[in-house]
């Protein structure tokens, strides 16, 4: 690891003063599960690291029927799993958290860090940058792309967003609260992630001098929800694809449906086509299958990842059926 200056401020305000205006010069440390390994691999070589763990207000988790769930960015995955109220109102959020392996990661990793983790793309992790370019051309289309994007890959980015929590939080209508030098702002999580167009861009709208401080989730209002992940192994790894579903039913008919795919595109990928295939209908296996098919109707797989199209189709179908049965 390259040498760096280390700071552990006690307030968000003093932390903000330590951040710079350019990505890469300063990094923010929370649980460390992503940042420390990325620094060892020299994926990032910050001059300064700002530790947020001494800031007390960022570890709160609260629920009210009126305003919903508020989670400080430093709430750990285990804190979220241990919170009975969060589990009761957002069972699929707990399902997604449970998919984060293993025990040590759940105790160290934070909700904020989970949402801001960098891509697992092996070209990125091995020094070829976010866009995996070599001599002005992406290495991905003709390279080892079996875990790469099947959707949203028409631009220069082929990596997949690695977050397990973002898709279900987007399906639930969640927001991120950001603190910057000019004060606070709230961004809907569905607009929080962006596909980088050039190497200097990041995968989200957070600015280098801002801190993600809180996640807000509106009240659940009787939604039926589920997450269905397809994994290659049950031990420490990221899913191949995951589908998050939140349905509102009236009298057995779907009134509204939000379906968001994870691990298939450079951003968490909402599929309104799947929601439309469900709305106004009673959920049967056939209808759920049609929604799964609709979810991947625009997929553009690469040379080695066509299999992920089928996995995403089935994940959506199973998430819908699981949500209706209340299995989450």
């Amino acid at each position, binding site marked *: 690891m390259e040498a760096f200056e280390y700071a552990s401020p006690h307030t968000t305000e003093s932390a903000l003063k330590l951040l710079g205006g350019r990505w890469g010069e300063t990094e923010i440390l929370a649980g460390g599960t992503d940042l420390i390994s990325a620094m060892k691999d020299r994926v990032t070589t910050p001059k300064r690291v700002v530790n947020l763990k001494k800031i007390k207000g960022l570890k709160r988790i609260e629920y009210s029927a009126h305003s919903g769930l508020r989670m400080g960015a430093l709430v750990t995955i285990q804190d979220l799993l241990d919170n009975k109220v969060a589990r009761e109102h957002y069972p699929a959020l707990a399902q997604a958290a449970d998919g984060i392996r*293993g025990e040590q990661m759940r105790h160290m990793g934070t909700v904020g860090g989970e949402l801001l983790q960098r891509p697992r793309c092996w070209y990125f992790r091995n020094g070829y940058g976010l866009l995996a370019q070599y001599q002005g051309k992406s290495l991905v289309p003709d390279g080892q792309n079996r875990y790469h994007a099947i959707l949203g890959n028409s631009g220069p980015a082929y990596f997949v967003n690695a977050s397990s929590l973002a898709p279900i939080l987007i399906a639930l209508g969640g927001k991120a609260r950001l603190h910057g030098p000019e004060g606070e702002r709230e961004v809907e999580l569905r607009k929080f992630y962006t596909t980088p167009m050039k190497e200097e861009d990041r995968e989200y709208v957070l600015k280098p001098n801002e801190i993600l401080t809180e996640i807000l989730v509106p009240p659940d209002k009787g939604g039926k929800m589920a997450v269905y992940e397809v994994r290659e192994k049950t031990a420490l790894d990221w899913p191949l694809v995951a589908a998050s579903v939140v349905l509102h039913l009236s009298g057995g008919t779907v009134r509204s449906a939000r379906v968001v795919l994870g691990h298939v595109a450079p951003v968490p990928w909402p599929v309104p086509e799947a929601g439309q295939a469900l709305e106004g209908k009673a959920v049967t296996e056939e209808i759920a299958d049609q929604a799964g098919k609709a979810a991947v109707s625009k997929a553009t797989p690469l040379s080695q990842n066509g299999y992920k199209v089928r996995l995403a189709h089935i994940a959506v179908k199973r998430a819908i059926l699981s949500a209706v049965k209340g299995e989450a």
Partner: protein
Amino acid sequence: MEVVRFTLNGDPVEAGVRAGETLVQTLRERFGLTGTKQGCDLGDCGACTVLFDGEPVLSCLVLAADAEGHSVVTIEGLSNGEELHPVQKAFLDEGAVQCGYCTPGMVLTTTALLDANPDPTEAEIRRALSGNLCRCTGYTKIVRAVRRAAEASRADGRGGE
């Protein structure tokens, strides 16, 4: 160099650490506690697991500076003198050790699991150990050892009533 003070295996300690020094390096190189293994050094294998305020963490991904004011338990701090901790004894009795490299991490993760959940199911055991890799053999004897340790701890608990 920064001076960090923390509790290590029950004793107050202090050490001068570099920025960028990880806890596993401090434990092994400054305190000579080589029971904590530096495996992949990237958070994948679990060999460097220690208990941090009683919770299992990967010491290769913890900056030593962040130990300030906390309590760290390594495999060397688990036994009571010559008397093995019930989890250590169960691993020994079940032969749940081959090369032994993953064992300190396995034992500490198990200790934290049983502290939180004294009677885990097999699924819960496997889930808890999903961040600890054994590359020698399989997990059958390890899972059996965890169950044996759980039974022994519960029997101990009843005996004390």
